[in-house]
C-alpha cells in the first residue's frame, strides 16, 4: 500500500510514534502513536496491496483468528486513511 505522507517512525519512552517530515503538514495532534499491532502493520504496509494481504501477515505472526485480525486491521487502516496517510 502506498504511504502518501513522509513520516518517520520513532521509538520513544517505549512507544512507537510516527512523526511528519518534509512537506507533510501536521494535523492537530502533530504526531501519531501506534500500538504494537499498529507498529507491526506499519512495517508491512509497503509489501501489501490490499487489506487481505495485511490480515494474512497478521494471522501468520499473531495467534488471532481471521475475523479479529480483519476488524483490527480495518480499524487501523481507517485511522491512517482518515489522516490522509494512505
Amino acid at each position, binding site marked *: 500500500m502506498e504511504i502518501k505522507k513522509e513520516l*518517520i*517512525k*520513532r521509538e*520513544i*519512552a*517505549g*512507544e512507537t*510514534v510516527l*512523526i*511528519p*517530515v*518534509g*512537506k*507533510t*503538514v*501536521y494535523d*492537530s*495532534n*502533530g*504526531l501519531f*502513536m501506534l500500538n504494537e499491532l499498529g507498529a507491526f502493520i506499519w512495517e508491512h504496509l509497503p509489501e501489501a496491496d490490499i487489506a487481505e494481504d495485511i490480515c494474512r501477515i497478521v494471522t501468520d505472526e499473531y495467534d488471532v483468528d481471521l475475523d479479529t485480525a480483519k476488524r483490527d486491521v480495518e480499524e487501523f487502516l481507517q485511522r491512517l486513511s482518515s489522516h490522509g496517510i494512505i
Partner: protein
Amino acid sequence: MLNRKQTEPQLSKYLHAKGRALGLPIAGNFELTARCNFDCPMCYVHLKSEDVEAAGRELSAEQWISIAREAKDEGMVFALLTGGEPFVRSDFFEIYHAMKQMGIMVSINSNGSMLKGEVLRRLIDDPPFRVNVSLYGGSNETYRRMCGRAAFDDVIENIAALKNAGIDVRLNVSVTPYNEGDVEDICACAEKLGVHMKLASYMYPSVRVNGGKYGYGDRLSPEKAAAASVRWDVLRFDDETFSKRAEAMAELRLTEEPECPVDSDEGVGCRAGSTSFWMTWDGRMVPCGMMTFPVVHPLELGFKAAWQELRRATSEIRLPPKCKTCPKRSVCAMCAAVCVTETGEFGKVPEYVCRMTDAVISQTKAAYEERKSENGN
C-alpha cells in the same frame, strides 16, 4: 470567542508523563541566537551586537545539529527554536531542516517581522509544527515605542500569510508599560486573524541581561500587571465562563490549566529539568530559559551526561516552604523561575508575585460584580 479552547494534545502530555518516569528529555528549547532585529525592553535574552561578542560566541549550525541529534537519541520529540530572533541567523534553515529530518517536531518562536518572501516559501515547503509569534502591540505606534520599529502592519500581514498557508500560528502577547493600553486592540487583532493568543502580564526580571539584578525589570507594578490579566479574562470569556472562573477564584481554585503545569510540592514540579531543557545561545544548558543556574555544559560533557547532571541538580531545588502551604498557591503564578529571578534564590518568597496574586483575586471579584450588575442580576 477569542479563546478557542486549546488544550495540549493528549499525546504530548502522555509522552511527558512517561518521559518523567524514565528520565527522558522529551522537549528541548534551542536559543539559536541572542541577536534580534527588534529591541524590546523586557527581553530576557536579547543583547546588542557589540555585547554578544563580549558575552560569548553563538554555536555554529553544526554544533546545534549535533546537540539536537544527541538529544533525539535520548528521547527528544519536541524542539522549540527561539532566540533572539531565530531568523536573523543566515543558517537557520540548515539547522531547522536537519532537526525535522531527524523526526523531531519543531516549533519556532519569532517576532514575525521576517516571515515573508523566501523565508515563508521555505517554511511552506517544510512546515514547522507551530510558529509562535510575539505580538507587541496593536499599532505601528506601539511597535515603535516598544520594539524600536514600526513593524506592526508587516507582522500582521506575515501572520495572515502563514495562516493562509495552513501553518499553525499562535500569538504570544507580553504586557509591559509600553503597550498596556493595547490589550483590547491586540485581542481584536487576534480575533480578526482567527488565531489563538496567549497573554502574559507577569514579566520575569531579566536577570540574564541586566547584569544579574534580581527582582528588577522594566515592567508594570504587580497591581497593573494583575489588571491587564483580569482585563484579558473579561475580554476573552463569555459571561458564563467568566462567572465560573471568578467563582472558582473566590475559592482559590483555577478553572483552566496553567501554561506550565506545576505541582504544588516544594520541588520544581514543572517540566524544567525533568522532561525539558533549555540551551542558551552560547551553549549552556539550564532547566528553563529564565534561569541562570543550575547550569551544565553539553559541549564539554556530551549531551547525555549533561542532561543527567541537570536532572540531578534540578531535583535538589527546593521552593519556599511558605508557598507550599499557601492557600493561594493554586491561583498563583509562582514557580522555580519566578522565585529565583525575583529573589536570587529558589527558596525565597517572590513578593512581587504575592502582590500580583492578591490583586488578581480582588480585581477578578470586582470585575465579576461589575459584570453581574451590568447584566442586572
